[in-house]
């Protein structure tokens, strides 16, 4: 898969580039509305520790666990 990559330690900078922050409980939130938690591709809130990246074209935040990546694979399959 062709993708820009980043190391784990750069997660917060990457999130910041997309105007996202992390709240006290560790969830990814909108920087301009910190009460608004960002949803991942499965419709659930996403913790910064689970954040695996952003899919091209739109703001689909993906989780880095096995099950979420399998669902991602299905969603990208023709």
């Amino acid at each position, binding site marked *: 898969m062709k*993708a*820009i990559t980043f190391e784990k330690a750069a997660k917060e900078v990457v999130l*910041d580039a997309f105007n996202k922050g992390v709240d006290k409980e560790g969830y990814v939130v909108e920087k301009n509305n910190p009460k608004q938690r960002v949803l991942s591709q499965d419709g659930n809130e996403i913790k910064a520790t689970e954040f*695996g990246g952003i899919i091209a074209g739109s703001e689909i935040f993906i989780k*880095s666990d096995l*099950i979420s990546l399998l669902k991602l694979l299905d969603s990208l399959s023709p």
Partner: protein
Amino acid sequence: MGFWDTLFKILPEKLHIKIASDNKSKKIEYHDNRQVIILGNLNKKELDGTKNYLKKLVFEKKIPILEEETKKLFEDIAVEDRNPKNQEILEYFQGKLPTSDLEILRAALIIKSKYKKGEPVSHLKEDIVLQYGIRGRNIANLCTADYFETLIKPLYEETIKNKLPFVKFAARYEIIVMQYPFAVFVSSRMTYPKLKSELQRKIIINKTYGITKINIHGIGKNNVKKIYKLLDELRSKFSQSPEIDSGKNFITATIYF
């Protein structure tokens, strides 16, 4: 060439983002066939510009941005998921197992493939447990120990051969998944006393049904050690010597009683 000229010339898929480097002055390094942007070495204008550029690549050029380990795992999953052996098992059980069990089995088969290559898999098993609970853990255990091919498939075929109703298979499958009386899977969280009591409990259940053997499975040095200690301690209670298939990091011991 300046920072911006260099940055804009890099193919997006060769772009890697890092916070720091041993070299405190280099802003872009060539490493492992990638152009690495060292964010910690950029001034504020360069950092803000880089962030905007990343956003543009994702939104306009439609290039995904992925954490490097996530990307690697995703690529591995895509390969293992296409593995013909795994596909054959999934196709066989299609319509025979509940849909959510098939989802678990699909993930468990990927774990099994990676485990057989000697890769660490405990964090992946944990992903299944977090999503599917005890049932997920059990199916992953049964899958990695080949029970879907060696026990559940023959059970289904036996059911069909004897023209028994499907519910018979479903009921026995449910017992296998939730109780697996024929096996003990030793995890790193299972203490030695718990392992011992679990084995003794299963021996009693099996004896009740006239079954005289149990398989004990363990992955990882500590679990292998625990199982050897247990075999040693309970040796006098076995009717014959255990059959052992083991390596540095795994063991399957069949005990008879």
